[in-house]
């Protein structure tokens, strides 16, 4: 399997720039997520890696070889689409063997290889069946089988689970991840679902408007978002972004919101004007002594935890607290935050201010 390096990749469609200047590295054996809202350029990026689109500029290396202007067939990768199309007139076995037949592999070898793939996917019993009568999950497995049967350098998947319902999707995502692990494959996977990205990915690239917002390990991106966009896009409910006007000097370790001072990680970057105080819902707690107060507008029971929506002077805030904690609508509460988790942002640039806490994640560029 392969290492894939993306360097300053750009794609224009006429006047429209779909991808601006993407750079990231997909290591051998990684399950790599391209994450972002629709129109962010993630699918275009994937299609350029596959060779289905040629980049306007920039380079793509697969295992050290520059392939950006090569044809898809010369790149030895397999593509799995959201709307996977099986050949309807062929049975399961014929569908899976088709790519090998095209490569003119000897028949006995094809048979052995298909049997092996069917075993991995648990569809040995279906090989002789027509694809017409298969369930959604089995169709998906056949589509995957057709991709893995060639033993390509990398798998590229464009929202392969997008069309499935929630419960089944959960099941298939586990299966897909287990499949990846068992084959020691490199997989590049496009999704707009942040939870799916967190759950399945070894690394994530978060894209927006054709640019890479952040690239890294899921938990680090969640803990230390590089931009306001990432802070808002990752996590459900997303990070609370409290707008305030103020100024921060290098070395500061407190910030005031309204009447209340809050401890924050030591800041390494000065900024002033419109700033944003970012705190995740699970790092909000209630403290009667706090002068920073809000009114509860909704409570949502979720079993062990509940989400509390609170209206504050800096906007609406959500807190995740234990379900056993008694909170009622219209109640006024003092708010406190877990100081070690706070990120400040500069509203005008949309980027996080560097601090002792996030420099390890953000400093690498």
């Amino acid at each position, binding site marked *: 399997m392969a290492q894939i390096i993306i360097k300053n990749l750009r794609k224009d469609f006429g006047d429209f720039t779909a991808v601006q200047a993407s750079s990231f590295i997909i290591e051998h054996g990684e399950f790599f997520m391209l994450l972002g809202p629709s129109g962010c350029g993630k699918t275009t990026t994937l299609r350029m890696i596959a060779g289905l689109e040629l980049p306007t500029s920039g380079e793509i290396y697969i295992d050290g070889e520059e392939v950006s202007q090569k044809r898809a067939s010369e790149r030895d990768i397999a593509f799995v689409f959201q709307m996977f199309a099986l050949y309807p007139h062929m049975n399961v076995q014929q569908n899976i063997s088709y790519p090998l037949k095209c490569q003119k592999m000897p028949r006995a070898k094809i048979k052995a290889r298909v049997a092996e793939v069917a075993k991995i996917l648990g569809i040995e019993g279906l090989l002789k069946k027509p694809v017409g009568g298969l369930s959604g999950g089995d169709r998906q497995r056949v589509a995957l089988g057709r991709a893995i049967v060639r033993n390509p350098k990398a798998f590229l998947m464009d929202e392969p689970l997008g069309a499935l319902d*929630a419960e089944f999707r*959960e099941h298939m995502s*586990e299966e897909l*991840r287990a499949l990846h692990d068992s084959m020691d494959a490199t997989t590049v996977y496009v999704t707009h*679902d942040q*939870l799916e990205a*967190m*759950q*399945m990915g070894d690394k994530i690239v978060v894209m927006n408007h054709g640019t890479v917002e952040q690239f890294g390990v*899921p*938990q680090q991106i*969640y*803990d230390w978002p590089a931009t306001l966009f990432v802070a808002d896009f*990752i*996590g*459900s*409910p*997303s990070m609370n972004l409290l707008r305030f006007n103020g100024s921060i000097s290098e070395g500061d370790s407190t910030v005031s919101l309204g009447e209340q001072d809050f401890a924050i990680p030591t800041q390494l970057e000065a900024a002033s004007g419109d700033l944003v105080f970012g705190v*995740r*819902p*699970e790092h909000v707690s209630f403290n009667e002594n706090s002068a920073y107060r809000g009114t509860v*507008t*909704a409570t*949502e*029971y*979720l*079993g*062990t935890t509940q*989400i509390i*929506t609170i209206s504050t002077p800096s906007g609406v805030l959500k807190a*995740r607290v234990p*379900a056993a904690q008694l909170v009622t*609508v219209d109640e006024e509460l003092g708010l406190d935050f877990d100081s070690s988790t706070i990120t400040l942002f500069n509203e005008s640039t949309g980027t996080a201010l560097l601090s002792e806490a996030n420099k390890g994640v953000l400093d690498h560029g």
Partner: protein
Amino acid sequence: MAEISLHNVSMSYGDHVALDDVTMTVPDGSFVVLLGPTGAGKTTTLRLISGLDKPDSGQIMIDGQDAARQTPAQRNMAMVFQQYSLYPHLSVRQNLAFPLKSPMLRTPEDEIERKVSEVAEILQISHKLDNKATELSGGEMQRVSIGRALVRSPQLYLMDEPLSSLDAKLRSDLRIELKRIQASLGATVLYVTHDQVEAMTMATHVGVLDHGKLVQFGSPREIYEDPVSIYAASRLGSPKINILPAEIFPGAPDKATSIGLRPEHIRFGEGVKVDVMRVEHLGDQTRIHLNIAGSRLITLTDAHTSLSKGDSIAISPQDPLYFDANGIRI
């Protein structure tokens, strides 16, 4: 608003039993969510209450009166569907006013005007009143379709998966909004969904349907903490409750064949040895897949856990639920 009750209601379509002897009360001012997979009988219940279909047997009472002879219009209920169909050639204002212009209601013009602006205010679409319905985003269209139900003052709101075609963020906003509107109007709502988060967060009462039978009816907390069966326990909670053979852990009662453990009800430290198969960092917490004597188990732990694949740990159950061979709670 009104109290609606069903007494021994059954309904079949040919050989298929859609509802089987259902007895249930939707109290005045409550938000009742019917939960179950496709084919459980949720939509059939809505259709019977609205009067679109007649039950084979049993009684439907609206405020203590038998509704059997009432037409759908006389029952005065408002329905919101998953597929919001607005009149594309009309403005938002005209769409909202449409139900009030029914010849049956004969609402005066100034009353219509007042109602429409009041509802637009509640749904925060006042600034879009003069837009054409087709110029709205998906979320705005769904709000207009909810608004069209709200302008009337029906006895009951019937909602059939109204949020399921919206994206996650909008869904979570509208969940809160719907709940707020229901509470502030004191409206009675009967809501159908297969989304357990909607059921947990909005309902005052949840009715769990299984192949046409109402198997449990109670508050979300009752059903989450005190389910009557494996089926009911599996309806709420994500990740799902783990169901394992009872003998895996010591201390199971005699008749128990299965033990049910919510992912958060697993203690680390001592007990049965298990292997960590997979660790998923979800940000606010970590999901851990365990292998326990050949069975799979999912548990949740701290976001920054140091556990990783291949580790071996010991676990014990906390607040276990036991079930017999038929899946009924012991």
